[in-house]
């Protein structure tokens, strides 16, 4: 009984210290360099291994420099306020996938902000923020919803963009009488609180029209770079 009581007190203390008094920062800040070093998207693993093997540090710096320049070029052109963030991890649980970014509330990150890649294409939105890290929920996650517009011959057609099975993006609730072509651009509509209008999401890849249905369904080809390591968080 005494042991159980001590264990319960320790658990409550840990919970309070870590989650209520932001003790989590000790772990996040302390382990950030290791996580940044370890994280490498699956597609880039062989490239990084080769670089490490040949000890070509200069080439690696050059690649990182190019990536940062691309980010800055897009952001200067769009005149958005932004924060650059490194992806330090990726987790998946019960069909929900999320990425860990090394910027948090202390840098001005809020829930719902848009996250874009070096080309300014939407990757997803911020789903949870801690003091020094944040969690990015990608657009292709099942259950990710965002309002979007299709631009077709200077006409704007609105709908809801939804991730499906972590593989594709679908756009729903578009009336069947609206004309859409394969290759039309899908952008954010700006109806969300912290996401501005006009951030590119992807291109129309397939149009599914059923004769008895009042809505048509669009399959969107996402345009973001799947091997992102540095992302930009667009501030409101």
């Amino acid at each position: 009984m005494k042991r159980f009581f001590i264990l319960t007190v320790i658990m409550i203390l840990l919970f309070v210290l870590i989650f209520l008094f932001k003790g989590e920062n000790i772990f996040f800040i302390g382990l950030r360099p290791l996580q940044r070093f370890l994280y490498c998207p699956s597609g880039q693993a062989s490239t990084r291994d080769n670089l490490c093997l040949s000890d070509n540090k200069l080439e690696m710096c050059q690649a990182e420099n190019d990536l940062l320049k691309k980010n800055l070029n897009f952001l200067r052109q769009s005149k958005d306020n932004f924060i650059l963030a490194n992806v330090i991890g990726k987790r998946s649980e019960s069909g929900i996938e999320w990425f860990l970014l090394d910027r948090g509330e202390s840098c001005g990150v809020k829930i719902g902000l848009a996250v874009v890649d070096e080309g300014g294409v939407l990757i997803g939105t911020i789903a949870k923020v801690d003091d020094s890290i944040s969690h990015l929920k990608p657009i292709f996650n099942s259950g990710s919803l965002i309002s979007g517009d299709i631009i077709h011959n200077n006409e704007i057609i609105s709908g809801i963009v939804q991730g499906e099975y972590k593989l594709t993006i679908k756009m729903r609730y578009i009336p069947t009488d609206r004309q859409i072509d394969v290759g039309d651009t899908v952008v954010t509509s700006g109806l969300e609180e912290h996401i501005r209008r006009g951030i590119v999401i992807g291109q129309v890849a397939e149009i599914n029209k059923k004769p008895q249905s009042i809505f048509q369904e669009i399959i969107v080809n996402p345009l973001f770079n799947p091997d992102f390591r540095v992302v930009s968080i667009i501030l409101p």
Partner: protein
Amino acid sequence: MTILKYIVLISFIFLLVVFEISWQVFPKGISCVFVLMMVLLLSAVEVEATGKFRLKYALSTAIFGGFILDLYSIFPPGLFFLSILSTFYICYRFIILKFALLNPAERGIHQEFNLLNFLGILIIGIISALVYQLLILFFSYLYYFVRLSDIKILLNELYFANLMRLIFLNGLLTAILFWVILKFKNLRHSR
């Protein structure tokens, strides 16, 4: 000495979680904390059958592993902690003690379901992984309905396909690791 063991265990759990999240070489879906907790629990039960009691390491793994998983989780704090601690309790009280450690005569048709053959360990591993996944689902819905979270796990084809893969992967890994430890122990005793 015991404190030192705990420090080593907690540091190991922490590094395991960080490696699992940031180093993308682990097969997708493997829950290292769950596997470690199950291996320690099965080892403790196996030792307990011979008279000693070492359940505390498995319990510590469940507690600290749950906390650390919650640190890097998109869900509100407590979900993984509650899930893994409940899994520990259910597996220990209702799966291992009720079935796996019964006398063979009492077990009846479940003759093969024990901690001495690989199939029995694999079945325990798979059932435990299923319990863990179902508890995550249960607590995520509980959080969603009491409005602590706006993330809802969708029960679609992807979820069920993923569930099958996760329970098999984690169950198999638990069984292999425990089997290796068991064989290693037997080998050491025989010498």
